[in-house]
């Protein structure tokens, strides 16, 4: 970047700068507040009635985490969520990329209608199809199964993935594919040897969006994964909390355990996360 493209330093007068800084600081503290309260609550025994504002520096009550793991089945739920998230993410990427290729490269009227229809599915609120979906899944004995949950989550995330893959593929120059085709490659060979290797950036976006959404899903998981052994992490945390709401410390510990995996990944991949989420929101 040349110096000319750098934003001009429009410096506000110092009272203005101070007000802006204070505003940002308030926002930052406000966003940290729920985490702080949860951490201090998780440190304390049930008998400890000191304020949530005060952390416990010595004698942390680790029993809270043990209770969350043993009674709340939080580790098991993390495992279930990992299976569902992995399965759905892989399926969404594979099916999404496959579907996007003809939609991006064969712009016939019917294909444009298919794409518009698929993108339209993005706006369906999950609760609006809860009744028919639940009754269908229970007829198929798909409640409390990994495969059922993976397919439902795949369906909720596919429209956005197809949209993102199609937009990305349309922006790729078609001449490379034509050259490969002239050299005798079949359409399928072109797709796997030429197109797929170029999809890494959009796949990163799709992976981030899908895995965050599936990991955090509650609205459908709470009904489709009902048995204690099959619960995924968001419903497990909520259920444990509602049954033990008098045991604030253990409920706080369960919340922390459920947030931890996402937090660790976010800290490592923070830049990609924000970029990917923006791309996904600009649908």
């Amino acid at each position, binding site marked *: 970047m040349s110096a000319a493209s750098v934003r001009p330093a429009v410096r506000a007068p110092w009272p203005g700068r101070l007000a802006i800084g204070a505003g940002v600081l308030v926002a930052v503290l406000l966003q940290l507040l729920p985490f702080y309260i949860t951490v201090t609550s998780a440190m304390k025994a049930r008998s400890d009635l000191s304020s949530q504002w005060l952390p416990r520096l010595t004698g942390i009550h680790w029993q809270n985490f043990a209770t969350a793991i043993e009674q709340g089945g939080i580790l098991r739920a993390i495992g279930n969520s990992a299976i569902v998230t992995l399965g759905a993410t892989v399926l969404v990427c594979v099916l999404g990329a496959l579907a996007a290729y003809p939609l991006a490269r064969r712009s016939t009227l019917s294909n444009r209608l298919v794409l518009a229809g698929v993108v339209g599915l993005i706006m369906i609120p999950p609760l*609006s199809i809860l009744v028919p979906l639940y009754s*269908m899944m229970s007829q198929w004995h798909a409640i409390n199964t990994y495969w059922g949950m993976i397919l439902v989550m795949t369906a909720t995330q*596919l429209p956005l993935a197809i949209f993102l893959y199609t937009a990305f593929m349309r922006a790729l120059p078609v001449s490379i594919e034509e050259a490969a085709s002239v050299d005798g490659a079949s359409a399928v060979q072109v797709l796997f040897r030429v197109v797929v290797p170029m999809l890494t950036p959009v796949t990163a976006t799709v992976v981030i969006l899908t895995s965050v959404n599936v990991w955090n899903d509650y609205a459908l998981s709470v009904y489709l994964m009902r048995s204690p052994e099959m619960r995924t992490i968001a419903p497990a945390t909520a259920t444990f909390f509602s049954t033990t709401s008098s045991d604030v410390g253990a409920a706080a510990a369960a919340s922390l355990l459920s947030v931890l995996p996402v937090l660790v990944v976010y800290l490592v991949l923070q830049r990609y996360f924000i970029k990917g989420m923006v791309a996904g929101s600009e649908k």
Partner: protein
Amino acid sequence: MTTSRSSIPRFAGRGLNLLYLPALAVLGVFTLWPLVNGVMLSLSNWDGYSPERSFVGLENYLRLFDDPNFRTALGNTFIYGVGSTILQQVIGLGLALALDRSVRGRNVARAIIYLPVLVSPVVMGTMYYLFLSYNSGGLNDLVIALGGERTAWLSDSGAAIALIVVVNSLQFMGISMVIYLAGLQSIPTVYYEAARLDGANAAQSFRHITVPMLQPAFATSIVLNLIGGMKLFDVIQVLTAGGPGYSTHSVSTLIAKMYFGSQRAGYASAMGVVLFLIIAVFTLLLNTMLNRRRLEQL
């Protein structure tokens, strides 16, 4: 879009369309069919488990509009949608403007403000519930320290509705902030330089350059927040579960309550159809009204 519609490569015959069949099959079975089946169920008096059900025509829909609980839920759905949208635009744009400048620690600030977006809303709701609780909540400690009285924040429907809007907005304002930041960064700086040479002050530059250039960002963020707020489910479930009474239900939480709590599957399906139609109409209207340009590049 760089490819013209006419330049379909030779290898891309009709057979290529086979590639989207697996995806369409999954969407057809798990999204489209439930949507259609939901319309059929909404015309029945099904209780959700028994094999019998009979066709009742539009009875469920007619009953909806006489149902005070549904009307409350519908009103709340709009409050959650519009309230969250206003809050998130104000705070999100403010933070984007503040953090667009080169201030120290802005990357850390952005990352922290964005962080709650990644937390499951139901877990975020749980964490706020701890803070709002009557006996041990940090908010009451603060209120008492300032000379106020211990308050049951979530037992008052007005306060509970406001708190649900605030919790939802705080959690997702990071998305608006990031959308506005991206919008601000796409404005060429020469515009500001030219305006300054012409003697424009900061307020004039903001009004005549920043605001119009942010149009696509406004559209994206508003549509996203409004739809998100109108779909709201998780936060309500954990903070109030629709109570006290039925006063804080959204249409989404009322659907779950009617189906799993009251065995009124046909009635709940009718609510689902209405919710879907409202969201669809709003999305289409807003998209046309805001003349939304799609940012298709990543």
